[in-house]
């Protein structure tokens, strides 16, 4: 009895051995995902909580409105990327039930985008519609930002089971493929707003590209089988 774990595996009855195989059965995966969801929720909320703390303790930058705009935009982008990373993660880990956290991540991306837009409209522009109108019509980075926001909003509003039923699975899926467009327009928004150093948008865009690539490789591999 040198290695009790291996011994247990080798001598386990078939039923038990199946239990140790990867991926674990759907019921086990669902239990894991359900248990981690509240933690994930809290995690998605931390950027907001930390920012509120910084507001309270006067730790925002000297131009607090710009600081808030950038932070919310940054977290909108990161959570959108996280949403897009779930499917590739499912392929890699073979944990299909991971998709169950995708909606929450997507809704949080939209939530930060709402804050981002709200800060821009109310705090930055002071609801001066003539300036906002000029910004939206004249500035490419605002145009793509607004496009992204429109897409994210329509996906958020139709994210419920009721809407899946109402639209029918096929149509719903077609609509929700717009999330890829949102990824690309977010990248463009970022590229067009930086003044000179493209390092950050470049890094995020490379991450996005690799997420897309993972899907393409997976689909090609499946078609060949």
């Amino acid at each position, binding site marked *: 009895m040198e290695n009790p774990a291996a011994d247990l595996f080798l001598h386990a009855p078939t039923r038990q051995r199946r239990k140790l195989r990867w991926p674990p059965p759907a019921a086990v995966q669902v239990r894991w995902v359900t248990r981690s969801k509240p933690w994930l929720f809290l995690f998605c909320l931390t950027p907001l909580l930390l920012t509120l703390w910084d507001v309270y303790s006067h730790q925002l930058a*000297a*131009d607090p409105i710009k600081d808030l705009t950038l932070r919310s935009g940054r977290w909108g982008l990161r959570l959108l990327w996280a949403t897009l990373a779930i499917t590739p993660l499912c392929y890699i880990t073979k944990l299909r039930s991971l998709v169950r956290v995708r909606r929450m991540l997507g809704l949080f991306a939209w939530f930060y985008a709402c804050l981002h837009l709200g800060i821009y409209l109310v705090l930055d522009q002071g609801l001066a519609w003539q300036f906002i109108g000029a910004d939206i019509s004249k500035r490419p980075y605002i145009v793509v930002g607004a496009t992204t926001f429109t897409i994210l909003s329509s996906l958020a509003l139709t994210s419920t089971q009721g809407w899946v039923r109402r639209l029918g699975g096929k149509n719903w899926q077609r609509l929700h493929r717009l999330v890829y467009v949102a990824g690309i327009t977010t990248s463009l928004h970022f590229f067009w707003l930086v003044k000179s150093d493209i390092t950050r948008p470049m890094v995020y865009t490379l991450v996005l590209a690799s997420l897309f690539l993972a899907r393409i490789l997976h689909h090609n591999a499946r078609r060949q089988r």
Partner: protein
Amino acid sequence: MILIQRPADITPSEITSEGLFRQRRNLIMASAGLLLGGGIAPATGVAAVSDFPGLKPGPFATDEEKTSFQAVTSYNNFYEFSTDKRQPAKLAKAFKSRPWTIAFGGEIAKQQRFDVDELIKKFPPQERIYRLRCVEAWSMVIPWVGIPLHRVLKALNPSSKAQYVRFETLLDPKQFPGQRGSLFGSSLDWPYVEGLRIDEAMHPLTLLAVGLYGRFMPNQNGAPIRLVVPWKYGFKSIKSIVKIDLVDKQPLNTWNRQAPREYGFYANVNPAVDHPRWSQARERRIGEWSKRPTLPFNGYAEQVAGLYQNLDLRTNF
């Protein structure tokens, strides 16, 4: 432990050197500023300190509320350190701004090099409270300590060929992390270069600033010596200058070279000409919530509009 020391016990090595003393004091003052909280640090508390004994107020002072020392020294566009405005204050702590030599050259009687402290002794600086308008549509009010540039230039005896002045920032990737660049290139071409027409450089508003709030120029604000041209966007006011040349051709300034559609040579503050990516009609004064209208030439039209009578400011933005 010895509690009472006779003065004779203090060896020369224990006496804090001037530079070190200054560094420590700056650190203490900076932390005091932090403790007082962002944006609300009272401007008066820090003005009491002076690195320039006998400093006198100069002309053109605005009586608008000054931006707090804390904000002026924690929110900086200084791409040699970082493109993030909060980073320069952190990354500039170890920057060596003394000893510092400025080389004057080009169309002048004699090529010369000046130590910055020598320059300060030779041309006594004054306090000048100016508005600063960044091209990114935010603004501050800063009590600079500066030498009117025309005094220095006149002393150099420029020849008639001197039509422009070209300024250059220190190139030192060891001290300036932003100059090292990344895998995807650098934020700008280094060293940073700026230029003025000779009449702009000779204008009494134009300063070689060596301090602010009565103190030596903080590192993150362009120590030890920088340009201040209050009617132009902030990027014209080049920092940490090592070279000043009087030249016969218009210098190609860094941002103009980087994005000629967005940044010109003149860069006069002009609410009527938008930056392609944002409006210049309004600005946010740091410390205020709502935007205020931007004034032509940043409110210095009376003094400088005459310089541009024959110039189309829409094309020469």
